[in-house]
């Protein structure tokens, strides 16, 4: 129980470009104390997500020894060879075990019909590439939504306010000056969470 409460918010980033994987990983780790896993394809993403055979007949089942990693948010590129980001989104949303995981789609192309299709397909957000630090703020509500569900299961009393974000609130002293100054300016207009440090692991 205590271990689960301390578990870091885990983001799975999917992109076929190594450069973009590096970038998104840095963006995620910089803006908040996320745990980040990066993979280069939709099929690898499904493996990490531990998509079970009964949920998705067209996806290969995992071997029984394979450990499922808990993922709290998926952020994926749209344009990838093989399985596109949209295909991955659909597979996640059609899976009974994974459908509640928020999915964010990134694309270098600003195509309104594509954006709508993704949002209608269940994507929470659509980021235009190159993704910026300021975009990371838009993840806040989705993180909180996921964490909140988890916390309600673990704790009886909870102060919750869905307008708060948990971005970088406790990690400032561990990061260096110039970048965090920038971040703090970005974050200063957001209210910090009322959660105590025992209920969330941001230290």
């Amino acid at each position, binding site marked *: 129980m205590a271990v689960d409460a301390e578990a870091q918010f885990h983001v799975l980033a999917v992109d076929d470009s190594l*450069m973009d994987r*590096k970038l998104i990983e840095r963006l995620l780790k910089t803006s908040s104390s996320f745990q980040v896993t990066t993979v280069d394809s939709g099929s690898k993403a499904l493996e990490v997500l531990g998509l079970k055979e009964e949920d998705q007949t067209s996806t290969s089942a995992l071997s029984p020894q394979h450990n499922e990693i808990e993922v709290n948010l998926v952020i994926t590129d749209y344009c990838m060879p093989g399985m596109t980001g949209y295909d991955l989104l659909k597979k996640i949303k059609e899976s009974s075990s994974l459908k509640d995981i928020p999915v964010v789609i990134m694309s270098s192309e600003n195509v309104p019909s594509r954006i709508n299709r993704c949002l209608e397909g269940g994507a929470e957000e659509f980021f235009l590439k190159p993704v910026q630090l300021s975009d990371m703020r838009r993840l806040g509500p989705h993180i909180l939504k996921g964490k909140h569900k988890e916390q309600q299961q673990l704790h009886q009393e909870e102060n919750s306010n869905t307008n708060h974000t948990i971005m970088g609130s406790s990690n400032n002293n561990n990061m260096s000056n110039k970048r965090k100054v*920038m971040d703090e300016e970005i974050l200063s207009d957001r209210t910090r969470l009322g959660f105590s440090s025992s209920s969330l692991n941001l230290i």
Partner: protein
Amino acid sequence: MSLMVLREQLNVLVNSMFLEGLLDAQFRQLQMLQDASNPGFVAEVITLFCEDSERMLTELTKLLDQAVVDYQKVDAYVHQLKGSSSSVGAQSVKLSCIQFKQFCEENNKEGCLSELNMVKHQYYSLRSKFETMLQLEQRIQAYDSEQQN
């Protein structure tokens, strides 16, 4: 050479690259993501960009050398190059790629060949400045760590 002078040289170089349109605001984002816990981030991204780009330029050269050009493949590589130049803030390369894509869509071989040359020219100019930038950064960081000891 003093640390201050090195830093000044680096600033002048980077600023000139912005002024010349070689770099855009995305590069500033990369700089913001670099810090004491990740001092090599910009260098790493630049290195990946260069490796990626050179690979793609080689493939593009081969593809456009064919009697019958596979424009779909050409477009796919240009798209990739456009994406990575956009991610690193390599504005002049990115703009060239946009033009290149246009020629691709028109199946215009001459246009593609001419634009490929332009992309190469832009890329190699950028690369040489990146190399200087990284050398300066390395010297600055060596200085910094020396000072801490």
